[in-house]
């Protein structure tokens, strides 16, 4: 916990692995939100 985080360095891109994991998780969550069915949608109740 006390040691500094590792960094990914690709050209001009420099980002710590913890930040990369958080952003990656957000992208995955956003994709799931687009794809996952929402309750009620497709039923008569949900289309009102």
């Amino acid at each position, binding site marked *: 916990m006390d040691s500094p985080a590792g960094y990914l360095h690709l050209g001009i891109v420099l980002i710590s692995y913890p930040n990369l994991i958080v952003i990656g998780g957000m992208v995955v969550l956003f994709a799931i*939100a687009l794809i996952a069915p929402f309750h009620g949608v497709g039923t008569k109740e949900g289309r009102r």
Partner: protein
Amino acid sequence: MSSVPSSWTARARDYLDRRLPSSNLLPERQPYYVGSWVYVFGVVTIAALFWVILSGIVLAFFGPQWWHVTAVGRFFNSLHFWSVQMFFVFMVLHLWGQYFAAGWRDGRAGTWMVGVVIFLISIVAAFTGYLSQENFDAQWIAVNAKDAMNSVGAGAFFNVLNFGQMYGIHVMLVPIAVLALVGLHIVMVRMKGVVKPIDRSAKVGK
């Protein structure tokens, strides 16, 4: 032709009756295109803000020694920190959702811009929060940040080494601004409704 009321209270009431009827303010149904998890991000952000404010009130009441030394204090300190992380994560996810839906269309530019201002003020809130921790991390951030503040000419009135100033901004000014603007943001969404999907908006000529 209806006469215009002379008093500003009557004009304000007429404006609110016209633009924000109670059916718009508290609707029991949403259009079918709101049936997506993407629209949940905004309300999760508000839920996170609720926990930020609640844990912040407890921390402000008992003070820095309590939140560093006692087990319950450390729990509320962590609750405050992690609810802030959730607030930012879901605020950015909400931003992505509205960006790709072009949520500023059909007269909603003001709603979008209020959201932008909330985002910017939230960064100030987080920054002053890190400076208010009362630990070595806060000192490290303050000592490094003072040069950045001086370089842009803000150091004379925004002194990151002044704990009282940073703490006052963090627990008083910034929460008032964020809560007021989040309230305005929600009311603006309710006045205009949720923006239509892009293809549907094009079909109806908007």
